[in-house]
Each structure stands twice: as C-alpha cells, then as structure tokens.
C-alpha cells in the first residue's frame, strides 16, 4: 500500500477538477511517459545544464568576450540555466494541464522581482539621501 505512488488520490477527498476542465477541455487520459523518453529528456537537460555551466566559466576568460560584457553574458547564461531546469527537470510545459504551474511561476517571478528590484531601488535612494554620518565626515575631512 505504501508503495502506491497515487496514495493522495486514495483518500477520495474530492474530484480533481483540473485546470484542463476549467479551460474547457474534456478531462484527458494521462499518458504515462515511457522510461526511455523520460530518460532522454533528463539527459538532454543534463547536457544543456552542463554546457551552460561550462560556458559561464569559458566566458570569464577575458579574451573571449569583450570585458565589460562579461557580466551580461553571465546573466544570460544564468537565465538560460533557469529555463533549462524549468523545462527539463521541473517539466514546465505550455500544455493546458500545466496552466497552474505556469501561472504559479509567473506569480512567483512577479513577486520576487517586485521585492528584489523594489528593495534595490528604495535602498539606493535612501542611501543617496541619508548618507551615514561617518561617510559624511570622511567626505568633509577629505
């Protein structure tokens, strides 16, 4: 019994009105992926993730990329890495039954960016207006 992967469903707690139903689609049969296709997905993901990691180190070499552009390259590789993880490891797709996951991700990204960029913006302005006393003295002392 404890080996049943769908133990959650055993409780008969309610019907799973999935988002598929809500989006106006008939409840679809679940097609369990074969081991082979699943393995292939994970391998592609692994190769891509490793390649992006390697690329980051490669980009650090000043001779490859224009110096001031390195930071931007690292950001791009980082974001691509996030995308690879979402697609190949967290299995986020654009399928209708994935709408909740996509929405949750969008909500999370929105909130994190609001707090992250908002905080940077607020603190930057605060630091400009409220220079600490010591820094002020250093500025005056020269």
């Amino acid at each position, binding site marked *: 019994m404890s080996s049943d992967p769908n133990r959650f469903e055993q409780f008969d707690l309610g019907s799973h009105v999935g988002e598929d139903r809500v989006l106006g689609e008939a409840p679809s049969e679940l097609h369990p992926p074969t081991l082979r296709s699943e393995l292939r997905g994970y391998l592609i993901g692994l190769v891509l993730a490793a390649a992006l990691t390697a690329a980051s180190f490669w980009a650090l070499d000043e001779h490859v990329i224009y110096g001031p552009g390195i930071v931007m390259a690292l950001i791009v590789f980082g974001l691509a890495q996030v995308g690879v993880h979402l697609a190949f490891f967290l299995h986020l797709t654009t399928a209708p039954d994935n709408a909740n996951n996509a929405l949750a991700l969008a909500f999370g990204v929105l909130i994190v960016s609001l707090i992250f960029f908002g905080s940077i913006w*607020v603190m930057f302005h605060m630091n400009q207006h409220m220079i600490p006393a010591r820094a002020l003295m250093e500025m005056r002392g020269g």
Partner: protein
Amino acid sequence: MTLLGKLTWQAIPLHEPLPLFSGAAVVIIMVAIVAWVVIKGYLPYLWREWITSVDHKRIGVMYCILAGVMLLRGFIDAIMMRTQQVMAYNAPGFLPPSHFAQVFSAHGTIMIFFVAMPFVIGLMNVIVPLQLGVRDVAFPTLNSVSFWLTAAGALLVNLSLVVGEFDRTGWLPYPPLSELAYSPGVGVDYYCWSLQISGVGTLMTGINFVTTILKLRAPGMHYTRMPMFCWTALASNLLIVAAFPVLTATLAMLLLDRYVGFHFFTDTGGGNSMMFMNLIWAWGHPEVYILVLPAFGIYSEVVSTFSSKPLFGYRSMIYATMAICIISFMVWLHHFFTMGAGADVNAIFGIASMIIAVPTGVKIFNWLFTMYGGSVRFTTPMLWSIGFIVTFAIGGLTGVLLAVPPADFQLHNSVFLVAHFHNVIIGAVIFGVFAGYVYWFPKAFGFTLDERLGKWAFWLWLIGFWVAWGPGYVVGLEGMTRRLQHYDVAEWHPWLVVAEGGVLIILLGIIAQIAQIVVSVRTREQRRDVTGDPWDGRNLEWATASPPPPFNFAVLPDVTDQEPYWDMKARAREIGQLTRPEPEYQPIHMPRNSPTGFVTAFLAVVSGFALIWHIWWLVVLGLAGAYATFVVFAWRDHDEELIPAEEVARLDRANRAVRSAALHHRQLRREVETQREPRQ
C-alpha cells in the same frame, strides 16, 4: 557553557508582583483545566477526536478556540495600556517602562499573529472544503501540523510571561534596538523563535489551501463558480505563500545578527538597519491583506445570504480581490515614508497606496448594491457586516490620508496612525471573523448562537470601538506619539480617559460574547439546526448536515451554477422533492488521525525554548526528535480509515429525511397561504 544555558532562577520574575501573579494565575488555571479534563476522563476522547484529528472542521474549530483564548490575553494587555495612560498623566502610573514596553509589544504580536491569523485560518479550515464540495483539504495531516505549530508559537509567547521577558521593541523588532547591543535579554529571541515556528505552520497552511482550492473542487465547480469566500481564501493563501518566506528570512537575518555576530542590520558593522524596515514591511503589508481579504469574503457571503440575493458584481469582486492580491506587494514603503527615500520614491508608493483603495471601494459598493432591493434580515452576522462597512469606510479614508507622504510626515508614529490601523483591523478583520463565527457556528456545532446576546455584543463592540479609538484620532492630531508610558500634556488626558471608557465597553461586549456561548450551549436542544441550513444559505456548506459528517458529502455534489445550493433548492421546490434520488452509497476512505502534528509541535516548543535560552544540547534533541517524528510518519503503513457504506447511508439518509420533510412542510405552508389569500 552550563547545562541550562542562560536559564537561571533570575528568569522567574520573583521581585515583580504583577507579572508574577498574573503568570501564576495563568499557570494555575491551565493546571486546573488539565486536571479537570484528566479527572473527568475526557483525555482519551480529546486525544482521539481533537488533538490527533486531521479533519479540517475539527482543526478549524481548534484554530478559532486558540484565537479566542489569545484574544482574551491580548485584550488584557489592551486594558493595561489604556489604564496606564489614564493614570500616567504627570505620574508614573502602575506599569514601569520596561513592563509597559513588553505589554505593547505582546499586545501587537498576539493580536496579529495569534488572534487574527488563527481566527481567519480557522474559519477557512472549517468552511473552504465544504464550500468547494469536497471531503477535506489537500494535505490533511500537514494541516494538523500547521495548527499545532501555530499553537506552539502562541505557547512560547505566553511562556515569556513567566520565564524571562518578552521583547520591548514593539510588535516589529526594529534594529538597532532589537540588536544584541541594545536588547541583550531574551525578549527579542522569544519573539523571533515563536514567530519562526508559527510562521512555518502558516506557510504550510498557505500551500495546503492554494493546492486545495486549485486542485480539489466538486465536479463542475469552475473558477467562476467558486463562492467569494473561496476566492478571497485563494488570494489570501497566495499572499501567504509569497510573503511569509520574506518574514522568515528577515527574522533569520536578525537572529544571525544576534546569535552568531553577523551584521545584516548593524549600521556600525557595515550592515544597514533600514534594510530590516524595508524587508519586514515587504512581508508586513501583504500580511494586512492576508487578514482582511478572507474577512471581505465573509462579508460577501453574509451580505448575500441575509439580503436573499446573489452577490452583486460577482466577477468584479473576483477582479478586485486579485488586483488587491498583486498591488498589495507594491505599497510597502508607505510604512516608512519618513525614512528618507526621497520624494520620487515616496510619490510612487503613495500613489500605489491610493490605487489599492480603488478595488476596496469596488467591494464596498458591491456589498451596498447586494443589499439594495433585497429583503435584508438584520441578524447578528448582518449587523457585524453593516457595522463593518461604516467603520471600515472611515478607517479606509484615514488610510488614504496617511498615504499622502506630506501628511504622513506629520502623522507618522502618532496615535492617529494607531487609531487608523485599529480602525481597519478591528473594523474589518475582527468584525469579519465575528460575523463568520456567528454565521458558521451552527454549521460547525449543529445549533445556532443566541441572537439577543449576539446583538448586545455587536452594539457594545461597535460603540466601544468608537469610544476607544475616536479619541485616538484627536490626540494623534494633537501630537501624541504612540507607546507613551507617561506624559505631561493636559489636553490629552481627558481623551485618554474617554478611551479607557471605550475599552471597558468593549469588555462588556466580550462578556456578552462569553455569555452568548454559555447560554447557547445550555439551550442547544431548542436551537438545533436540524436541516443543516439555518439561514436559507446559498452555497454548498449548507447542503450537508450540521455538524457535517466526517466525510462532508456522501456523494460529491454536482455544481451547475454560481450559487450551487440555492440552485439545488430552487429545483427541489419546482419538482417537489430532493433533486437527487437516493444514491447508491459507497464506502469512503478518509485520512487516518495522526499525532504527528502534536508531537512535532511539542518538540518545536522544546527546541524554541532551548534556542531562546542557549541550551544547545536540548536544541539538538528537540530537532532530532521532530525529524524522527516526520520519518515515522512518512514510513507509516496504515494511513486511512474506511467509513463503511452502511454508516455513510445512515448519516446521509437521516439528513435527506429532514430536508425532505422541510421541503414538504414549506410546500404545505405555501399551499395554505395561497388558499387564504383573498381572491380579487
């Protein structure tokens, strides 16, 4: 390092009579209650049916009881503060500054985290699965763990009354005051650890309810058919999931500062104390909406039911709710306009704060239009709702005023501000949970509450609130700052005396509420809710018996309308019998009770206490025990009970019989009435 860390006999306030006696009284009362339970032989029942229960209804009731008990504790703090300020005009009063500071800190902490939060979450627990037409929340045992962790946090806060001290920094421990250099005692640690523990519980509640609402609904219940309370619960839990990690991280940084010498918030060590204000309010403002959105949901249910009309502007209500859900993350700086971020930042956040008032205004108009043209029944829940609309509109207006940065520079940290947030938290959240409590009480317990005493409670609370906090606006405008232990301004004194009178009126209101429970329990046989639908309700929670059977619904209801139960009743009246013929009853699997929550929370209290007092071996022991409990739970073999089909049939047939009888009774009465009507 000693065996008991920093804990010595000095932690017990033997030299301070006030905390000593109140602490001793609480301990004696608790021991007496436990002794009574044990002697009467109720312990096995309590353990089996409540403490280890994973039933959402039971957990919800326990949340509400926790909130009620903590409301009494927080209210005693309120009386002490008001009395102190009456006595402390050119005088020291009866509370020394260190004690006064603990009282106002404890009052805020308790009222937000251990009254408002558990009350709101408790009502969501009881009602959301019923309204969705399902049998429990998505993760029932996790739900039990959530509750007990919240109770663990509450216990730690109360423990600080007897062992050691509570924090003296206000309900949010702003550095540098909360840093080790200025608060070397255990007060801030009590605050942080109790909130870290209960915060984990709250976060798990958030995950649980988002999952439940998104994934577990009765067949046919589309998003645009969900009751408004479920929508607001969804928004509120989304906010919990997004905001509570911020609180946890912020308090963790403060704890790292205090325990291992980090410098996140120490200005002298390269940190930035303003970052704490920024982060704590990035959680704190959404928190306001975590509390008030479910209250808005309750008002929507109550106003619609007692106006006998569908909710006006259902879709606009959804849009307003979700708009608030997002915008609530864009206004946090209005809590610290005066900190010096400059005019452009302040302007943006000021405008955002005014914008968030728009969807709130939409809601107010929707409730008014729901009442308009309806046949309004002035029951207690409806009185709370109308009292809320009036009170909250005024509280919202003072909020919009405070959202104007130049005005805020004058009013910041004044009693005007304190009056404003009491106006919205009491006027919206507390009135809301009281409305929900009276409205859904018969659903949870099977009998209605006494209306007469309920109305007394409402009027005493409403008048008491205004007498207590109306003067707050006045003294605030006269320049009185918050948290004053003593003062020498003659103009403030009469107003503070009036405010004390208001608190005493509220006290009478609370006494009326306690009397209401006592009277209603005593006369419960006369006030039984036999059909399960005492208010002529509109949503699915009324479609099952009161109290509902453990499985809620023998067969999951089919939802074809935005007001499923109203629709069901209308069709039943048309065809003259229940809409569904008796189903073929099936046995139902339900999750099995589990002591996991209780044991984990007990070990969390042990770990929290040990962390506060630096008893490291006990920390390790407690955490290892909590992990072991989790492992034992994860490896369990037997995790569900089977409710046999006969039992399901027995319970459901009984309810079908009374509903049928009620339907026929109603039809007979109608026939008699139509015959009596004079023909013209």
